[in-house]
């Protein structure tokens, strides 16, 4: 996790209303989102956002509806102008860009996938996939070949001549992804890209995305309101609430060390055995390999697979292997402790 920072967001504020500058002063003086709306008639969209988005990683921004996720991701390509703050891409402050440079950024550096697909209904699937190259002025014969290649890659071979309305939701979003991939931009912005899909199809699409990411290593900013999806995809997880960041970091770390009742409540509902990985709770190897181990488990395995291996016997202990070398040990009793959500018994956590 030592990749370069591709996009960095600094001290970003966004206030919706007639006089955001004046409202910003109130926010800086500590006025909360509900108070700002009630007393000053302005909506606090984002407050004091600082995120480093690393190249080649999937950064997931998670929060409930209305928490400002869409507002945040639209600042990256300036579909929304901030009230204060800075957004830099490859070290360049995007907010200094004039119209021409901004257009170039949108055409070459970033591509976007939308919750409602936003395909052009009057163009064929193939033309839709080639939209971004078409916008750049690439010749039709060239971009259609490229679009065809990516349609195949997302599993839509043979559908190029169809129109979007002839495809199912899942297939339409595959076109949306093919469109983003055809642009060959290093950064992909995905705003609730899978939220409109059925659960099974959603899982397929998540797998597809992970598979593509393994191969392409794009910088992906992915937005979701679904914690399972966030944990499955995220290299870096940012949790948003009422426009501010509650906690951000490695997802496993957040799961084991939630710093806010809001997050504790969020994580208390998920299947921890399936999400937590052995690497997150093992004891690093200090001396010799213990002799009483019952077997070997992989560093990146989930706890669920270790439970299955032990047959549920809590007295077992295992050696953790990484690249065929032992790197730590794990007791089943520690594993069971990790399965108990922190403070899950506390009634108060439910109130959020």
């Amino acid at each position: 996790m030592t990749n370069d920072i591709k996009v960095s967001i600094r001290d970003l504020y966004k206030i919706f209303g007639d006089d955001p500058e004046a409202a910003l002063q109130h926010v800086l003086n500590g006025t909360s989102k509900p108070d700002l709306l009630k007393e000053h008639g302005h909506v606090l969209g984002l407050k004091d956002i600082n995120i480093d988005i690393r190249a080649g990683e999937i950064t997931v921004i998670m929060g409930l509806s209305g928490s400002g996720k869409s507002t945040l991701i639209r600042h990256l390509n300036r579909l929304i102008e901030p009230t204060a703050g800075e957004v830099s891409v490859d070290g360049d402050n995007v907010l200094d860009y004039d119209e021409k440079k901004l257009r170039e950024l949108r055409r070459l550096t970033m591509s976007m996938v939308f919750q409602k697909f936003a395909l052009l209904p009057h163009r064929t699937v193939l033309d839709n996939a080639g939209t971004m190259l078409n916008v750049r002025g690439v010749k039709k014969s060239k971009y259609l070949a490229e679009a065809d290649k990516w349609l195949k890659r997302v599993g839509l071979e043979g559908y190029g001549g169809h129109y979007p309305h002839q495809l199912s939701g899942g297939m339409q979003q595959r076109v949306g992804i093919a469109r983003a991939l055809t642009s060959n931009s290093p950064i992909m912005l995905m705003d609730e890209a899978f939220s409109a899909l059925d659960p099974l199809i959603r899982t397929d699409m998540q797998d597809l995305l992970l598979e593509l990411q393994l191969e392409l290593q794009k910088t992906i900013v992915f937005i979701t309101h679904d914690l399972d999806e966030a944990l499955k995809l995220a290299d870096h997880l940012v949790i948003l609430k009422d426009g501010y960041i509650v906690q951000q970091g490695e997802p496993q770390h957040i799961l084991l060390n939630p710093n806010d009742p809001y997050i504790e409540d969020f994580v208390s509902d998920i299947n921890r055995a399936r999400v937590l990985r052995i690497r997150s709770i093992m004891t690093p190897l200090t001396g010799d390999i213990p002799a009483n181990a019952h077997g070997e488990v992989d560093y990146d395995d989930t706890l669920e697979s270790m439970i299955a291996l032990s047959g549920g016997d809590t007295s077992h202990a295992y050696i953790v292997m990484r690249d065929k070398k032992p790197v730590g040990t794990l007791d089943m009793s520690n594993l069971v402790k990790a399965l108990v959500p922190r403070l899950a018994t506390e009634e108060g956590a439910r109130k959020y």
Partner: protein
Amino acid sequence: MAYYDFAFDKLGLRDWCDADKTSDGPVSMADLLAQTGVEQEQSAFTIPFPSLDELHDACAAVGQSRDVTKGVENGFLAIKDVLRYVLDPLTQPLSWILESSISTFESTPWWLMLPILAVIVFLTSRSVRLVGFVMLSLMFLAFVDHYDHSMQTLAIIFVCATLCVLLGVPIGIAMSRSDRLQRMIIPVLDMLQTLPPFVYLIPLIFLFSITEPKLYGIAIILYAIVPVIRLTNLGIRLVDADVIEAANSFGMTNKQKLFGVQIPLALPNIMAGVNQTIMMSLAMVVIASLVSAPGLGVLVLRGIRNLELGVGLVAGFGVVLLAIILDRVTKAALDRVNAAQRH
């Protein structure tokens, strides 16, 4: 003698009223009647409204209503020359286009015209049945010797509807991009749509010579351009905001957005506007026969003027046939556009 005498007397304006009462200028109809008739008894039920004519009776210095109409007329006549000087050359091409279009439609022999129309109908509608219907209708009109008049009507509609689209679509696009422009144009459209068609003709008759085709050309265009402007504006404003946002995120220029996204997605609405525009052109071209527009309207008019019932009814039926043809063909084209981009 007049009812409102007392008002002027009380206000002490009698002298002013009678100051230059030299001769009894032109007399109004009511005065003539009053002179011959018996003096009516006055009661609360017969109090006349203090209209200009009524006040004039009491006080000669107050003008009559006819002076108002006279004033309007004089005012219009005063600016007429200037308007004419500007508008005449500007609109002259319209006369040329109409004349040449009518003569082209007329001089094309029927055995060439019918197949051409059949091909056009097929290309826009892709329906063999509709082609059959159109051919039968036109052949019926030709059979009862209404072919020439029908072609004249079609030629005028062809020119006027095309010009409506060429002017109306850009105006609608401009309106969709500026709320201010929209606020300015909508009252004008409302006015054009509510004015009875005959009223357009009045100032136009004074502006242009009645023998010039542009006279009825302008009347038809003013009347029929409204729906295409309205629906272009509406269609573009109704384009899905998500798709527009996507277009922005791809870095499309305004031009790419307009031609690649907004117009194609607004096309169903624009086509609906074109359909209405064509139907309204047809309605107006019949009325415009009053100002020398050739075509079926002339026969309808003859039926009315000379009480030739048969001539009027057959020509009227011809108009109905043309209306059905134009409506069906444009609706079929509209359906094809709709089918191609269902969501």
